[in-house]
């Protein structure tokens, strides 16, 4: 079984300040982990992914995430927030199994607000 907990439903930051969106996961197998972003009335866009290579993963638009197995965490960070970063962010886990089947398990989402 696998699950994802996003520790904050809402995060508000000022433009130009750092962003931290927290995610903890649970997985019976070696996990693949993703962060997706969803802007209003738009589909889901992949920000970054971890698939057992480097533990520090760089994504698009300046976002990064660090896989910490001991803490079962995969927090998303960005050094400086931009107004265009305001959106809903989802942490996602998938099991990397031999069968190749993949069902994504989503967290409940974190709404990021960026104040001017």
């Amino acid at each position, binding site marked *: 079984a696998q699950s994802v907990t996003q520790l904050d439903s809402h995060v508000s930051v000022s433009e130009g300040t750092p962003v931290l969106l927290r995610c903890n996961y649970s997985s019976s197998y070696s996990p693949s982990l*993703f962060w997706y972003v969803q802007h209003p009335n738009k589909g*889901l866009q992949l920000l970054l992914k971890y698939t057992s290579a480097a533990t520090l993963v760089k994504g698009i638009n300046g976002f990064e995430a660090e896989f910490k197995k001991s803490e079962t965490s995969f927090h998303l960070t960005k050094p400086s927030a931009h107004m265009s970063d305001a959106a809903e962010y989802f942490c996602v886990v998938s099991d990397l199994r031999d069968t190749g089947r993949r069902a994504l398990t989503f967290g409940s*989402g974190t709404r990021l607000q960026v104040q001017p």
Partner: protein
Amino acid sequence: DAGVTQSPTHLIKTRGQQVTLRCSPKSGHDTVSWYQQALGQGPQFIFQYYEEEERQRGNFPDRFSGHQFPNYSSELNVNALLLGDSALYLCASSFWGLQTEAFFGQGTRLTVV
């Protein structure tokens, strides 16, 4: 290169009716998965199709069914609609068996009245 396309974008149905949603995967992808996203929640996995067969299914009743065609496109059918079926339905495409990311369409907003 067209990404994942879904139709229609919006739909209003009455309780008890049936609905069909459509999805065309990203060019070259052979696997289609469907997700339901209720308002204010994360998407939940409904089922996945590969080689025209349902390969994996989430915790959804049999009222939810699907199909995949030889060109890899897919349909999601929901029978006997309930008010609680109102949601954004997302289609995702990927390669079977490879740990690559899934690409999502913009979704179909279904409202049941």
